[in-house]
């Protein structure tokens, strides 16, 4: 019987397999950041262990770095200590680090592909759930906890139960691909299958709606696999994938021979079977806006805030969850989404802070001004993205419109640095999670695409970006 792409990558990485229970899986790339690694390095020291493969390990600082002037000292002492600790750990254990002064610094899931560290057919882990992003390149990439970070540092392997393959087919063509984006596709998927819909699975995204996407858009899709509960999400590599990685700083020297091999091997066999299947037709999908406190609580921009009864369809627990969410978000059922005013706009995060995201958002912003009551910011995903955007003059477009233009980092996606919402503030955000307090205690997050966020910044409330003149 044929195998799925995921099963092929899995099988190619088995070090030890037993009759039952977990297998020992080899890890090709380990990405490390400051928040989930200090206790892992401590563990190594306590047990007198080394990092087995520093040459397969790369670190950067992204979660709590300030996005303002990099030459100033970090005011938050606990953040400063965590950042210094990573620098010391990398030095002590011989790990390549892109620190706050490096032109390669950025959100770990943005720099991996940009530097050519992410490779098709590889296994990639990081102490961060959005590691699923790298699946866009046909890699098996997933988030792990700190104990597993320590385990990978020490052994370059992990004991893993084999997840089940889940096929999500995206069929059709978007009528206006500048207004209806990859973010709207993945939010639609999560809205339909739920935040636990992918638990225990590795999703393979397939179909015309996926192969049509650029690499950066595919990363947005795979990034949010975890928001549907999936262990990982991946897309079979094609010529777009191979072109993207060609000639990057750390692209392997024998790249072309690897590409020849990947072309032959990295695809799902026609007679392979998936345990689970879901199909989304995208011809008529609308821009999406989340209204609640998990990414599944999302609707079309043309809809109104649903009532807990309509949302839960008879499930009492879901109904209670929706009631609580509406209370937290201070929203009344029946309110048109386009009537919801925003105080803040955040364009950033590992979901939507790549060059294409900024180019698309800049088209909305160009020759317009941010609404006077809105504070809006752009936080590029990496210093490389920032530099490329500045070479194109995008910074000027955003600054002229009264956006703040920041240094790279995770920033207000999770508010570990000073970029946070105040209690009660409402934010149109291109990030991935609208959990209670995620962007700041009491803050209210609405997940949207970069163009929808930009449009909300200009108008001061949500608008259907399909109706805006983007020429």
């Amino acid at each position, binding site marked *: 019987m044929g195998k799925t792409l995921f099963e092929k990558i899995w099988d190619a990485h088995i070090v030890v397999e037993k009759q039952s229970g977990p297998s020992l899986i080899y890890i090709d*790339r380990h990405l490390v950041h400051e928040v989930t690694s200090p206790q892992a390095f401590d563990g190594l020291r306590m047990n007198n262990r080394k990092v087995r493969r520093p*040459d397969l390990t790369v670190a950067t600082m992204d979660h709590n770095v300030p996005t303002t002037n990099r030459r100033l000292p970090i005011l938050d002492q606990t*953040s400063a200590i965590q950042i210094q600790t990573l620098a010391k750990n990398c030095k002590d254990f011989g790990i390549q680090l892109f620190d706050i002064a490096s032109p390669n610094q950025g959100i770990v899931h943005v720099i991996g592909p940009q530097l050519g560290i992410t490779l098709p057919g590889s296994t990639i882990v990081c102490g961060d759930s959005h590691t699923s992003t790298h699946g866009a390149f046909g890699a098996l990439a997933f988030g792990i906890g*700190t104990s*597993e970070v320590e385990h990978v540092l020490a052994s370059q392997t992990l*004991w893993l139960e084999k997840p089940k393959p889940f096929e999500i087919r995206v069929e059709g063509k978007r009528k206006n691909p500048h207004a209806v984006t990859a973010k709207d596709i993945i939010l639609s998927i999560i809205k339909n299958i739920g935040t636990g819909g992918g638990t225990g699975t590795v999703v393979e995204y397939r179909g015309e709606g996926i192969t049509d996407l650029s690499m950066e858009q595919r990363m947005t899709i795979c990034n949010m696999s975890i928001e549907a509960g999936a262990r990982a999400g991946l897309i079979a590599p094609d010529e777009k994938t191979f072109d993207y990685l060609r000639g990057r700083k750390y692209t392997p020297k024998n790249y072309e021979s690897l590409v020849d091999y990947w072309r032959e091997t990295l695809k799902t066999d026609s007679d392979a079977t998936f345990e689970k299947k879901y199909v989304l037709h995208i011809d008529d999908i609308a821009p999406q806006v989340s209204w609640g406190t998990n990414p599944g609580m999302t609707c079309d921009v043309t809809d109104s805030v649903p009532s807990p009864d309509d949302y839960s369809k008879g499930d009492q627990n879901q109904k209670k969850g929706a009631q*609580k969410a509406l209370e937290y978000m201070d929203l009344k059922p029946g309110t048109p989404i386009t009537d919801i005013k925003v105080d803040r706009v955040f364009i950033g995060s590992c979901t939507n802070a790549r060059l294409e995201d900024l180019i698309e958002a800049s088209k909305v912003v160009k020759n317009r001004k941010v609404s006077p009551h809105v504070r809006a910011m752009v936080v590029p995903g990496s210093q490389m993205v920032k530099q490329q955007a500045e070479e194109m003059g995008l910074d000027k477009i955003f600054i002229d419109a009264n956006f703040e233009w920041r240094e790279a980092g995770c920033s207000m996606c999770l*508010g*570990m640095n000073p970029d946070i919402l105040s209690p009660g503030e409402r934010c149109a955000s291109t990030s991935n999670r609208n*959990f209670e307090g995620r962007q700041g205690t009491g803050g209210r997050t609405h997940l949207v695409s970069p163009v929808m966020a930009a449009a909300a910044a200009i108008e001061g409330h949500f608008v259907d970006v399909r109706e805006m003149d983007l020429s």
Partner: protein
Amino acid sequence: MEPFKKIKTIVTPLDKVNVDTDQIVPKQFLKLIQKSGFGKFLFYNWRYDEDNHEKQDFVLNDKKYKNSKILVAGDNFGCGSSREHAVWALQDYGFSVVIAPSFADIFYSNCFKNGILPIVLDEQTVEKLQHMHDEIEIDLENQVIITPEEQIPFSIDAHRKNILLEGLDDIAQTLQFGDEISKFEKQSKIPSVL
């Protein structure tokens, strides 16, 4: 890690679905560089108001549950961020068992690294346990929950069960496979980063 022993306490009912790790331990407490002391941050935004006073309507602030080691929660517990701090907070607070109809994958796996037993039971049984006022006993060795009325069996992977019962250091175990790992590395097609 301490070996997992039999536990007998009342349960703490947390009647919520989709409890994400941002709720279990909010991000402002992730900046610490050690594993200990996270218990005081557990469910912080639900436990305390803006002036850091205890919210009386939150279950953890009800003194009757002070000695409970068993948390019973709704579907998809531990979703979202991979932060192991969530498990460190539960453990440091005093919980040894979490029962729910389902768990997010990364959280589930993190539990076993820290001596916490996550138990999956059907929704009806979870709801029944949430309303139980008597002590219940968790017997991992025999994979059974003993209540005054009945015995509820649960399933768990044998390898993971063993790790908890023995309190094993799984890195030490893995390093015994050093030869197999080296052999794998010799034939690997994926080159070094540098």
